[in-house]
């Protein structure tokens, strides 16, 4: 691995570090709101990764002059990743809104938004159900 290779790929690795931080928050934290925050960090890092794919050194934003007289010497960055990520950002905020609405309902029904507590409540419900219905089959759920 030459220094040149490292420098020209470092950007990607940096974004991967960010992505994995976000991903780790999602899978390791038990607070439902924090999970959503982690998911957002994960996604935003993926978006940054995408955008860095489209960057051209010395390029500029892909917007032509208003009279559409394109100067052939000007380098423009790749517009396609921008379009994809615009769509992905919107999808991301839609998911966030829905996830948060679910959290509000969960809080109203369970009285908590901590995974551990909720699992405990659900285990309790399961035990009650088994006690009520279970004798017939003798199995466990």
């Amino acid at each position, binding site marked *: 691995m030459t220094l040149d290779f490292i420098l020209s790929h470092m950007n990607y690795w940096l974004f991967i570090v960010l992505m994995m931080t976000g991903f780790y928050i999602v899978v390791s934290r038990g607070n439902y709101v924090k999970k959503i925050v982690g998911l957002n960090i*994960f*996604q935003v890092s*993926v978006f940054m990764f995408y955008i860095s794919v489209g960057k051209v050194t010395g390029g500029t934003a892909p917007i032509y002059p208003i009279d559409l007289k394109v100067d052939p010497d000007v380098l423009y960055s790749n517009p396609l990743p921008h379009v994809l990520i615009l769509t992905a950002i919107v999808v991301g905020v839609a998911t966030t809104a829905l*996830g948060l609405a679910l959290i509000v309902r969960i809080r109203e029904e369970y009285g908590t938004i901590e995974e551990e507590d*909720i699992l405990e409540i659900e285990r309790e419900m399961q035990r009650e159900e088994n006690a009520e219905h279970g*004798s017939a*089959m003798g199995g466990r759920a």
Partner: protein
Amino acid sequence: MAAPSAQTALTLVDQLPILTVLVPLLSAPVCIILGNRSMAWLLAFAASVASFLSATHLLLQVIDGDVITYAVGGWAPPLGIEYRIDAANAFVLFLISGISTIVLPYAKKSVEHEVRQVSHTLFYCCYLLCFAGLLGVVATADAFNVFVFLEISSLSTYVLIAMGAERDKRALTAAYDYLIMGTIGATFFVIGIGFLYMATGTLNLADLAVRISDMADNRTIQAGLAFIVVGMGLKAAIYPMHLWLPSAYTYAPSVVTTFLAATATKAAVYVILRFLFSVYQPGFIFETHTLEFVIIPLALVAMFAASIIAVFQQDLKKLLAYSSVAQIGYMMLGIGFANASGLTAAIIHLFNHGITKGALFMVVGAYVMRAGGSFCDRLNGIGRQMPVTSAAFVIGGLSLIGVPGTAGFVSKWVLMQAAFEKGWWWMAILIVASSLLAVIYVWKIVELLYLQKPEQEAEAKEAPASMLVPMWLLAICCIWFGFNTEITIGSAQVAAESLLGGSR
């Protein structure tokens, strides 16, 4: 068939690929404008029928191996987004729209019973979105468009599952867990597409296939495949990534469970098939290894572990949910064989399992409505109180096991043939062995239904006709496709060929 040229006006038939998806998609906002629940149901049903007719027409057009392309926005691919209908996705479109058309008449009574009246309009709107999203995922030939439509169907699925909270609050956490896992899956999928885009510069699947074919040792492409398969695997509930499925299916309203079990995972499996075999060609050396050493063992574990867990379930819905995880194992096994007959088996099973599970979950929905739940002890002796419904369960159960004369038998038979073709006779034994597990859990329920005495005196009435007819339609399909194998095997073979022939 060539892409429609820019000059001539497109006829209705030329527009069918987009109309299949567009009619339900645009009906959803119209539902909101109308704001009336019976109109919403009517519109959903009409859209579903239109979509089904259109999908049937498409299937008949491509059954001989033709390909229909449709450039959305008039921009020729790879510049624009393209719909590309071949036998493989026409077959899946046919399944999804067909199931939806059968589910909706059933839905009316069941939704009235399980969902509060004020949200009925929104419910059908959401259902339409989910339906249209799945169709869009299957019809498109653009990698990023798959993601967008996948999210339409996923977001609406989360909501539909959460609607089960009327009956059991665990529907909310089931929906939340699915939301987290589904979003991780979708993000993985986006990463995978990003890698492919980086290496090739295109998002069109056919164009990707051409450009990938001589890049087999490119590590970006390899990692891209891993992320696409894992991302979609989360949606398809492939074995270690199935954790969201049992509780989602258990606590969702019965109609939602029926529809999802019969279609949603199938669409995800289709996307995996498409990427594995059309975009990446099976000639990929590293890929065949992946298939043999990763997918086949996981498929086997799914077939056994999930079936064994299913045996111990006391909630009929949960039992069937675990059985779904096991059945997806069969499909993955077919994919793992990585040859034409394995692929054919996977596609047939995709279809047959769709109708079988559809029928079974419809029966469960009827039990929930009449017996007040799907727990085993509620079902004691219900076979005598609800004979018509329970007979449908028996047929579905037989098909799930794979008894000769049912649809389930056909798909397992083809799968075993594929195993023999590879010379893996032990695999055939394993397939039979796992079917025996299915015998155990199906028998367990049948015994409850017919041989146990009802606990209470409370008489459960037979389900209403609007539920019985769709249920029996699917049950008859289970038998019909067990004897009449030309349609399924025929189209699955063409589908497998067009997947493998893919881009050529």
